[in-house]
Structure formats: structure tokens, C-alpha cells
């Protein structure tokens, strides 16, 4: 029985793969890969991403990817952020009720070489992450990439020193939770910021609006003091970087909790619930 199931699984996987690959190779998308001309939708995005002569359609950010992520398809990204939020909340719920505070002791962690190298590297990682996130509207990068890069720094500290060192310098799970909530709050406020300004001034506006659009002549300035900031894109990138970096830090801290402490909590919960 099991053998038959195995054969069915393998043959259906192979059939699906061959059919899908064949369809894609002979032009199942409507064109053969690689296309000479991109799709019309891509042309619209590319021609309006920074177009001062078409202000009413333009996102006014030279980086088309970030413009799509936070302007053209902002609602999509807000819901993706919700998925991230839910995954992290669910992980915290699984690991609830575990207290593991202990003073840091110099003998823990790796050798002095690893520790010194980490001390040198960590500020650079945070700096690069900040640069990726803050230049997201100008160069390839943005809040997601910057946040994922910044989360490497606490991960390195966790592995090279120990979770107690990270908590000793003040980055506990609850503080990371506060940082993450601040980032999510920033995303939420930035979604409504143009809407709120328009309400005060008495115009129409859309949620997640960045630049002036038809029927709503309100928008954030796309340049500040001669530097392009891309309206809401800069605010979104900063908030998202905070949310992603702090969210991953929480998960790494939870993964680093010693196993025996978790076992103790689980067994006591099992007794109390019968």
C-alpha cells in the first residue's frame, strides 16, 4: 500500500514538473523566455516610477522595486507584513512563560578571537543595514532587506557570546517586542498619513497614498532640501526595517533558550493542566 502511494507521489510530481517546464519553455506565459520586450504592466511601472512630467501617475522614486512594494502595491505589502507579524506572534505564543535570566559570565561563548572579531564587525553590519534601508528609494534595497541584514548582528552576538550577554546589554525579548511593535505602528501610521493630512485640509485622499493622484491633490513631498526621499517610501522603509529586524531578533532569542529550562516549563504546565 505504502509502496503504491510512493510511486503515485513520484510519478505525479514528475508529470507536473515536465508539463509545467514544457509549458514555460514553449511560451506558456504568452512569450518565449527571455522576452525582447517586457510586459505592458512592467513598461507602465518603469515609465512612471520617476517621471516629473507625469506627476499624477508617478511614484516619484527612482527605484522601481521599492516604488512597487510600497506605492503601487502598498496594500499587498501591508498584508505581507501582517503574515510576518502573525508568524512571529505564533512563535512567541509557543514559547510563552519561559523566564531565563542569568548574569553573563566571561567563560561562556567562543574564544577571545571570535569575540573581538564580532565586536569589530557588528557595528559595520548595523551600519550597512541602515544604509540599505535608508537608501531603499534610491538604490536596490529597502526595509525588508535592511531589516534582514540588521537581524544578523544580534544573531552573531547570540552565537559568539551568549543569549545572556545580549540580555545583559539590554536587548531582551520584551524590548525587541516593543521595537517591533513601534515598527508596525510606523507602517500603520504611514499608511494613513496622507489621508489624515487630507482630512485636516478638507480634500479627498486614498489610504496608502504617496504622491498626488486624480481627485486627491495631496501628497508628501518627494524631495527634501534637494534630496529625493520618495514621499512615504522613506518612512515605510524605516518602519519596516525596525519591524523585521526586531521580529527576527525575538525569534533568534527564543531559539537560543536552553532546552532544560523549556522542558521544566512544559512539564509544570502539563501537571497543572492534568
Amino acid at each position, binding site marked *: 500500500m505504502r509502496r503504491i502511494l510512493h510511486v503515485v*507521489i*513520484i510519478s505525479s*510530481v*514528475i508529470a*507536473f*514538473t515536465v508539463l*509545467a*517546464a514544457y509549458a*514555460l*519553455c514553449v511560451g506558456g506565459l504568452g512569450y*518565449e*523566455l*527571455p*522576452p*525582447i520586450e*517586457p510586459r505592458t504592466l*512592467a513598461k507602465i*511601472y*518603469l*515609465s512612471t*516610477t*520617476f*517621471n*516629473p*512630467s507625469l506627476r499624477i501617475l508617478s511614484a516619484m522614486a*527612482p*527605484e*522601481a*522595486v*521599492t*516604488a*512597487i*512594494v510600497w506605492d503601487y*502595491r502598498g496594500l499587498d*505589502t501591508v498584508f*505581507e507584513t501582517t*503574515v*510576518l507579524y502573525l*508568524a*512571529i506572534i*505564533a*512563535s512567541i505564543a*509557543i514559547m510563552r512563560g519561559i523566564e531565563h535570566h542569568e548574569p553573563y559570565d566571561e567563560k561562556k561563548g567562543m574564544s577571545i578571537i571570535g569575540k573581538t572579531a564580532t565586536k569589530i564587525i557588528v557595528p559595520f553590519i548595523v551600519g550597512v543595514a541602515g544604509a540599505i534601508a535608508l537608501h531603499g528609494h*534610491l*538604490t*536596490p534595497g*529597502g526595509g*525588508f*532587506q535592511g*531589516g*534582514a541584514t540588521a537581524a544578523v548582528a544580534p544573531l552573531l552576538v547570540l552565537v559568539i557570546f551568549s543569549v545572556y550577554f545580549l540580555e545583559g546589554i539590554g536587548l531582551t525579548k520584551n524590548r525587541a517586542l516593543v521595537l517591533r511593535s513601534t515598527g508596525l505602528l510606523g507602517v500603520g501610521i504611514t499608511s494613513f498619513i496622507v489621508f489624515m493630512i487630507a482630512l485636516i485640509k478638507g480634500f479627498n485622499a486614498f489610504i496608502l497614498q504617496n504622491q498626488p493622484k486624480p481627485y486627491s491633490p495631496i501628497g508628501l513631498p518627494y524631495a527634501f532640501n534637494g534630496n529625493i526621499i520618495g514621499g512615504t517610501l522613506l518612512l515605510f522603509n524605516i518602519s519596516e526595517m525596525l519591524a523585521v529586524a526586531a*521580529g*527576527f531578533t525575538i*525569534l533568534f532569542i*527564543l*531559539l537560543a533558550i536552553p*532546552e532544560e529550562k*523549556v*522542558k521544566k516549563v*512544559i512539564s509544570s504546565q502539563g501537571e497543572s493542566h492534568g
Partner: protein
Amino acid sequence: MVNIVVYLFTIVIMSMFVNIALALYGILARPSLIKKIIALTILGDSANTLAIIVGYRFAEPYPSPPVLTKLPPSKSDIQNFVSVAVDPLPQALVLTAIVIGLAVTLFLVFLTIQVYRLYGTTDVRKIAKLRG
């Protein structure tokens, strides 16, 4: 005479689908939850790479990333940019998908650890037979 670019593209796409097939087999047929998670990450990364390559284009002399470098642009700059830049939409979808995928993978890892702590195994056949 086969066009060399189309030929190479076909090989790349086929190899990605082979990757997807291996990952699907791992998810469906391997009993260990950890192996399933590994296969799931391979599936996700293959699908992301496939999405990126669908957004690729052929341009002379070579395609450019979808970033406008000349600021402020004139009309001919924008026309030139549209004629060489690759499709930005798959990249925008993939960059969120990677980060969300990492978070969901970590969540699955937490679930698997919890299952291991409670039942002492990550074998789905044994977990399915447990009672209570």
C-alpha cells in the same frame, strides 16, 4: 541553428523545475518534519528564482536593473530606461516573499521543536499514531 540564449534559458528553467520536483518529493514523501522544512525552503527559493527569471528580458547591449540612475530624468532618459530595464514586479514580489518565507520557516521550526519536546520524535508516521 538553435538560438544559444533560448537554449541556455531552457536549461536553466528545466533545472529549476527539477529542483521544484525534488522539493515537492521531499515535502510529500519524507517522514521527518525537519526534512520537510528543508524541502520547503528549497521549494520556496526555486519558485522565487523562477519568478525572477520570468521577469528577465533580452536587451541590447545588456539589460539593466530597474533603477533610474539619471536624476532628474529627461523624456529620452526615461524612454531609454524603459527600453533596457528588466521587469521590476517579480523582484518586488520576491523580496517580500523571501523575508516572509524566513519568518514562516522559523515558525515551522518552533512547531517542530515543540513536537519533538512533547513526543520525542519528528517522524510523522509515529506522530500520527499517537493518542491523547
